[in-house]
Structure formats: C-alpha cells, structure tokens
C-alpha cells in the first residue's frame, strides 16, 4: 500500500514537472530531414501563393528556409535550436491579417500532404503553431 502511495506520488511529481520536450510528434513527422523537407516545400508554396508571395519580396529565402526548418523542428519537439527572431519581432510591420495567416496554414497543409504526413499528425503540429496567430497577425 505504502509502495503504491510512493509510486502514485512519483507519478504525480512527474506529471507536475515542467513538460520535457516530448519528441513523439517529431518522430511521427519523420524526423529532422523530413521536417526540413516540409519546411522547404512550404516555402516553395509561399512563393507560389498569390495571396502572400509579396510578403517575401525583401526576404533572404535561403536563410528563411533554414530558419523555418529549425522552427518546425523545435515546435515538433526535435533536438534543434531556432536561431531566428521571435514571431512577434519577425512579423512586426508586415501588417498581416487572418486571411494571410490562414493562407500560410493552407500552404503548410499542402506541403505536409505532399510529404505524406497523416491528417491527424498534421493537426497535432498545427495545434502547436496556431497560437502564433496572436503574434503574427497585427492587422
């Protein structure tokens, strides 16, 4: 009984500890290379998307591609470091609206479709990205 109590206490402690990077999603998305491919395909979709491509007119796209891959990897729970600016600073002054944000989501979904990420896994990833709307959309 006492043992059980200790086990329960340990379980509670683990549950209460700050969330450790869980890499289940990172694995389900295929790992680092697969995620870099998704980031790259997403970038291609952005540049082909009449709704948002003008946003990237003054962007170094090689650097953008690399930063997006880093960010996706971190968000998915992978062992990466994001070296770019935070979302608020990166989008400040771009005057993006919700339609722009959703265009980005659709371009990402298209890339994940192409790269064989299942719909349920896509949604787990999108759920982590969705709150960025608060920082990205300023209009």
């Amino acid at each position, binding site marked *: 009984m006492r043992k059980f109590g200790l086990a329960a206490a340990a379980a509670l402690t683990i549950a209460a500890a700050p969330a450790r990077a869980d890499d289940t999603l990172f694995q389900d998305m295929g790992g680092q290379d697969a995620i870099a491919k998704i980031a790259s395909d997403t970038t291609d979709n952005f540049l082909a998307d*009449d709704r948002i491509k003008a946003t990237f007119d003054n962007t170094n796209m090689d650097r953008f591609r690399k930063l997006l891959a880093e960010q996706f990897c971190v968000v998915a729970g992978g062992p990466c470091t994001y070296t770019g600016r935070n979302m608020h600073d990166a989008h400040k002054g771009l005057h993006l609206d*919700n*339609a722009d944000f959703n265009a980005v989501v659709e371009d990402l979904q298209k890339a994940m479709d192409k790269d064989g990420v299942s719909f349920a896994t896509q*949604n*787990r990833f999108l*759920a982590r990205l969705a*709150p960025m709307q608060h920082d990205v959309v300023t*209009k």
Partner: protein
Amino acid sequence: MRVKHYAVWSALFVCIAASAAADDASAPGGVDQGMAMFDNGKLLATGGVSSLEGAGGGGLSTWALITGYGTRDGVGVDGHATYISLPAYSLWTEGAAVGLFDRVELSYTHLTFNTENVGAALGLGKNFEFDQDVYGAKIKLIGDAVYDQDSLLPQIAVGAQYKTTDHGNILHAVGAKSDNGTDYYIAATKLFLAESLLVDVTLRETKANQFGILGFGGDKHADYSTQVEGSAAYLFSRQFALGAEYRTKPDNLGIAKEDDAWDVFAAYFFNKHISLTAAWLDLGNIVIKDHQNGAYLSLQIGE
C-alpha cells in the same frame, strides 16, 4: 412564400458568380478588386454548416462559430436547403445567412413542415403544412475556436432567434400559447485541433414546441425553459467530418409528449463554396406519431 426562396437563392448565385468573375480578373495580380469583402480567408469547415434554424452550427444545434468564410476583415454569405424525411412527416428548410467580420451573424430561414397523412387524420387535410420563419442574430463574445489552441477557453457567442409560425388558430387549439416566440442561447465551441475533434455545448432559453412548428408555450408549461444542445465531430480530413448531436426540447403541450432529438451526421466540404451534410435524425414523438426518425440532407452554398 416560394417567391421569397427563389429570391434568396438567386441573390446567392449572383453573388458567387460575381465573386468568381472578380477572382479570375484579379488572379495575376493576386489582389481581389471589388469583391475583397468576400475574402474567403477562414480555413475550410471552420464556418460550420447551416443548422435547422439557419444559424451556423451542426444540423440540430447552433454553434458559436460565425457562418461562412469571412475573416475578421471580411464577410461571408451562404444559403442552404435542407430536407428531412420522417416516417409520418417531412420538413423543408431554406435560408440564407451572412457572417460579418467573423463577429456577427444574421440569418433568415423558412421551415415548411408537411403533415402528410397525419394532416388528414387530424382533419386538417392531407399534406397540410405549417410554415415558420426564423430570424436569427448571433454575436461572438470571446475566444477563437481555431487559434486559441494554447488555452481551454472556447469560442463563446450569444444569440437570439425570433420565430413566427402560421396557422395561429390551430396552434392555439392544440394548446400553444402563442404563434411566435424568441429563443435566446449561449454557445461554446472548441476545436481540439491536436485531437481533430470539435465540441460544442449550447444552452437555449426557449418556449418553442417542436422548434416552434407547434407554437410557443403550452397548456402544460407556458414559460421559458432551459434546454441543452451538445455536439461532437471528428475530423477525418480537411473535407470530411463525422459527428453526433443531442438536443433537449421542452415538453409544453398536453396533447402530445415531446422527446429530445439526436442525430449522427457526415459533412463533406467540397471547397469553401459547397458543402453537403447527411444525417440520421431522431425527433422522437411528434403529435400522434412515435419514433420519428429519418434521413436529413442539407446543401450549403456560400461565398
């Protein structure tokens, strides 16, 4: 009555045609001239479908989502036609709704309830129809069902539906207190995106008997009562959802017991302009007929 429906649908098609033309014209530049108001900026399915009473929601229940695909910088408009085939009755609804800046929703729907053979049995005449108009308004208060994935706060909206039904003399004869009434509701809708699950709970203050088709208030209970609507839908893809709904209803009339309603539904979103919802709906007892369950089919067209 029919004239009004054709007007609604004609207006809708003109709208879609005009917008499609504007899209084509502006495609190279990427800037929507003229029809920028219809930004179609929301994600697929996030406007819900048209519920029985015309508001954005599921089939039976009204949700907190604002209908259509306009973002907070745009508007969306849609129309729907719904047919419900029950063993003893049939129900048609047609209507239109507009979503303004993802904040306010205004809707109009017309319901036609055909009593088929029951009409004859009751001495009203075979295929005797009750017609009802529903004028709805909804406003989103707080939360965003889609973006707020970092919080448990749902999207919350309040709304009202003014309903008026014809044949007031017959409604009074069956015990109804009035041929018109207003429902007030508060709806909470949350997309649990990581689980691909959409959930809604709605509380409704209403006097309506069988959605108002049999009038408002009754000999057994005349006043408002609080009723509950609950829905859950699992998203199988961006285009396809399966779900179930449950809705409690008042039981105001002495002449007939009124049951709760439920359904299971499948919704398919072809694109942001067309969706089709098919359901199996159970309304329970309606007047002299028990076990009124049958097929529900609803088409929504929007811009």
